[in-house]
């Protein structure tokens, strides 16, 4: 990859608005996702995080520009957007409950040479359960299937929506570990309510409020600002949990200058 390509954002969203059943759920959202690392998409419940993810891949009606690796994709149907290099891990897993684990994975294979070995290495338990109906798996196992479906293919970006929702702490740690491993090779836009996981994984952050972007910048910089976190998320962030978090925070803050606008009346942050 050239230096220019490395610095160019992998995903650029400009003026994205989305509707569900005539109701506006995302309003004039603009942000970018860098070509490396994990960017957290944060906000209180119901601010439009999941809708933003769905709007990016065209699962709900939307207007605005979506650029993937320099190519406009907003006019394409969902299946073509996915084929252009987007891996999607939906909220609530959405595994096919009446298909076996093996069928769920086979269905997701779109590359000529899917990365079955990688998936087997990351999720050995799935291999043992390949003949089991996905609907009979535990929530954590279903999340592994959902992640495995996205990791089977070579993607330009992963869109991961609340992967730790409803999972036991031990499984949350496993999911976080998997995401950290995946992020070494592919950038991730992560919707996550668990701020400990965000602190552990994310470098950049985009915060939504009222369907709009109200803050962008370093994830650690945001989480370390108790007043800002309380105001935009309604919760106080936990203390630093990542090794060298201060160093990382400084580094990331240097990479991604923070931009905050008044919530909820703020307009989308400038790109």
């Amino acid at each position, binding site marked *: 990859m050239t230096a220019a390509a490395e610095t160019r954002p992998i995903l650029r969203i400009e003026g994205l608005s989305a509707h569900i059943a005539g109701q506006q759920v995302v309003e004039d959202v603009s942000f970018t996702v860098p070509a490396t690392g994990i960017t957290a998409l944060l906000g209180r419940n119901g601010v439009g995080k999941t809708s933003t993810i769905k709007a990016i*891949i065209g*699962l709900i009606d939307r207007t605005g520009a979506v650029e993937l690796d320099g190519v406009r994709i907003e006019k394409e*149907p*969902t*299946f073509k957007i*996915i*084929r252009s290099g987007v891996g*999607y891990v*939906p909220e609530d897993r*959405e595994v*096919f*409950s*009446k*298909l076996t684990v093996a*069928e769920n994975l*086979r*269905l*997701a294979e*779109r590359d000529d040479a899917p990365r079955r070995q990688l998936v087997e290495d990351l999720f050995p338990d799935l291999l043992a359960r390949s003949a089991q109906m996905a609907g009979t798996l535990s929530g954590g196992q279903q999340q592994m299937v959902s992640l495995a*479906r996205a990791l089977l*293919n070579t993607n330009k970006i992963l869109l991961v929506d609340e992967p730790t929702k409803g999972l036991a702490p031990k499984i949350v740690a496993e999911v976080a570990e998997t995401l950290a491993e995946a992020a070494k090779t592919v950038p991730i836009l992560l919707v996550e309510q668990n701020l400990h996981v965000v602190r552990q994984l994310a470098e950049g952050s985009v915060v939504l409020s009222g369907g709009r972007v109200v803050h962008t910048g370093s994830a650690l910089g945001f989480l370390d600002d108790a007043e800002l976190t309380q105001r935009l998320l309604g919760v106080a962030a936990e203390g630093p949990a990542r090794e060298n978090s201060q160093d990382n925070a400084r580094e990331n803050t240097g990479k991604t200058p923070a931009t905050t606008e008044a919530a909820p009346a703020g307009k989308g942050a400038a790109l």
Partner: protein
Amino acid sequence: MSTVVLLLFTGLGLGALYFLVAAGLSLIYGLMGVLNFAHGAFLTLGAFAGWEVARRTGSDDWGIFLLSLLVGAAAGAAFAAFTEFVLIRRLYQRHIEQLLITLGLSLAAVALFDGIWGTDPVFIQGPAWFKDTTEILGARVPNDRFVCIIAAVLVLLAMVFFLKNTRYGMIIRAGVENRSMVTALGIDVRKAFTLVFTIGGAAAGLGGVLASHYFGYVSPMLGGSLLIFAFIVTVIGGLGSLTGAAIAAVAVAVLQQFANFYLGGTGDFVVVLALALVLLFRPSGLLGRTS
């Protein structure tokens, strides 16, 4: 005893016809959410196409009968594929418009068939064996019932094999469960839509040829009269469930025959009552997905 056996086999034969129509209806609704009122027209076209084969060849032997089955299935499949590709595809997620367009198409198709083949029933001759009966436990069962039952069982087995063992079968099963997630895996689900319509149309066309032998005639209204009961079968079996459609088809047809004989011709009423009970106590049908 002989009456019970006769009613049972007559019911199974009729159930086979219901299944051939309901299988396509169920898969189409399950995958695409389309309530296809034009499905009866696929059956009628298949029946007329099969009859045309016999008429034009001037023969009623087994070879021509088998050819008429193939032509009937092909005619139903072609009509269904045309319907999906030209009319339904433009109306995804617009369920009211889809319903209206399939309803309009069914009316237009009947008018077209009236214009081509006339409004009177056309009587069908099949292989001479069809007119004979086979004695089972004292009952003399018309042979055409066995043909319908065997054909429906073969179609069921073929469909199950297709759904379980092919990639498109897997896509269809997944799509019945969660269509948008199939798309979100990078799969062009529209191809599966066309395929499901085509398979459903082929089964209906095949059912049309068999129905014309079962009832002894073909008319432009043939598909419409079977469609009503196929809808009932689809709902009782569970939308999107092929096995559910097979079980419900047999249950509905046998119940109908027994009620007609023992309860003074109340077969249709009893079937509607069964539908009401299912909707009341098990709205998702016998094997349908729970909402």
